[in-house]
């Protein structure tokens, strides 16, 4: 019995894992399945994999008015720009919160964190009206700024704790040696902060890439992103599993790779540093 228990535990864990990963595996398997087999029951498990679904999704005008590759490009532009914006304003803010002892700092930090509670479904209503009045609907900025705001609390929290882990004595010594504070930040702090910045950037990118509500509401064809296109995919042409899952796989694959790379930093970031 004593040897059996750990074995059973491992079996149970692997079974739970299989169940957990099943939807993802189903998506990938269906994406490489020949179209005529994808919806047959009983499900076909053995077949010759094909790339034709990916080819038709990425190059053909399989749905709506444009191919899925264009939507991925929109997603990429929005994701990169919002991540850069979040870092551009987030790094100084994190440094200020970590190293400058000014009055109101704690209140500011708490307020920054509290903005994560604002439901996007509520803020999207006024943003929609404002963007229409300013003729910003279906432009990149109308997604870039909100996405940066969505990931900023997390970016600032992650970077603030990274900065605090840099011994302050290093900074002091550099300033004693006559470096200005700005130069010191550039020469000493930023290089040490690179791993933290990379992790924060990847997290911010994941959030932006996956966002749905704002993209659904504020974009039409010019800036439409991949998640919105995926949803339209089924409502417009019924359900063709091969193409749907191929498009879904292309959308999810880069994020899954980043998730695997980040792993612990992902949980650390999403839990605002509660888990180190």
């Amino acid at each position, binding site marked *: 019995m004593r040897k059996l228990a750990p074995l059973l535990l491992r079996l149970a*864990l692997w079974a739970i894992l299989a169940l957990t990963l099943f939807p993802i595996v189903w998506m990938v398997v269906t994406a490489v399945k020949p179209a005529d087999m994808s919806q047959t029951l009983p499900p076909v498990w053995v077949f010759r994999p094909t790339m034709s679904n990916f080819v038709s999704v990425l190059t053909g005008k399989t749905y709506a008015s444009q191919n899925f590759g264009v939507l991925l490009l929109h997603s990429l532009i929005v994701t990169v720009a919002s991540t850069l914006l979040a870092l551009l304003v987030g790094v100084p803010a994190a440094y200020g919160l970590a190293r400058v002892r000014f009055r109101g700092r704690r209140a500011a930090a708490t307020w920054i964190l509290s903005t994560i509670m604002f439901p996007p479904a509520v803020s999207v209503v006024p943003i929609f009206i404002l963007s229409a009045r300013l003729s910003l609907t279906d432009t990149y900025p109308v997604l870039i700024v909100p996405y940066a705001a969505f990931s900023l609390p997390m970016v600032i929290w992650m970077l603030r704790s990274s900065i605090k882990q840099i011994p302050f004595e290093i900074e002091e010594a550099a300033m004693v040696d006559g470096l200005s504070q700005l130069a010191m930040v550039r020469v000493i702090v930023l290089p040490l902060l690179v791993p933290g910045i990379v992790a924060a950037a990847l997290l911010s990118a994941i959030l932006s890439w996956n966002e749905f509500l704002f993209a659904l509401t504020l974009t039409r064809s010019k800036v439409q992103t991949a998640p919105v296109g995926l949803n339209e995919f089924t409502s417009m042409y019924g359900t063709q599993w091969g193409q749907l899952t191929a498009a879904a796989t292309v959308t999810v694959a880069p994020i899954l790779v980043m998730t695997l790379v980040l792993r612990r930093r992902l949980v650390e970031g999403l839990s605002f540093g509660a888990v180190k």
Partner: protein
Amino acid sequence: MAIPGAATAGGAITGPPPPRYWVRHRVALTGWGLLAPALIVLLIMSVVPTIYLVMFAFQHVDLLGPGTKFVGIQNFERVLGDPEMWSDAGATALYVALAVSIQLVFGMALALMLNRKMRETNLLTALFILPLGVAPVVSALIFRELLNPVYGWVDFYLQSWGLMGDPVDWLANPLTAWISIITLDVWQWTPFVALILLAGLQGVPQEPREAAVVDGAGPLSLFWHVTLPLMRPFIAIALVLRAIEAFKTFAGVYVLTGGGPGTSTTLLTLDMYRIALQDFDVGAASALGICFLFALSFVMSRLLAVLAKSTDILED
């Protein structure tokens, strides 16, 4: 580490002597100056929308013509007088309560299972994290196809393994539609909860456990009276973060059930979307939004109190 503000801010200043105002306030100016860009971005997405919500809530907003006019509290009367809104508010609360509590229970079970030294622990935790990266739209689409009553694999395998008689149209019946949206959220987020709790388990000191074992505590009372209290900060953080996100849920439910069948799975976030962006009744949506924010700020202040009491996440 006590760092005097004056030593950290401003730094070496060369050139002409700085104005006296700068000298006196340079710590505050440096701090707020560094924060300002981030605060502006966050203000655009929180305070600015709130101001407009309040304005719109007392107006009839005409998107196309010049028909925007002040209507007093009419919008609030309509929203609060609509029994559907109250039942959707109840649905939202139920959704959060069910999803988060199931995730905490399953997450704890998974964390306890993973908290053993095994050769494959690292591999397992790495793979368990994957649902976190799947866009909610994608996971909802996958669930929708798997639950399809005609082609879906769920019905097929449940039937062929003899677990179910007639095929079930999962999304066409309120109870099974609820099971589906809760399962979707549980699938997506249980691994995250498990990893937070696992970190907690690994940080629990061994001495109290050993002392309890010496005192003759069984595994169950050991868990209940020793481990669980020690993990309180981690449970609190998982609870609060998941509750915040669950209240904000839109994409998964919108894609999986669209709020149906009927309005049985309609959360307040879906109401906001429908009223504002499909019925174009911006005034009513704004009034609903303000009520939602009010209710939420009450719940959140309680949750933040939990967080402040049992963790140091809000500390410097």
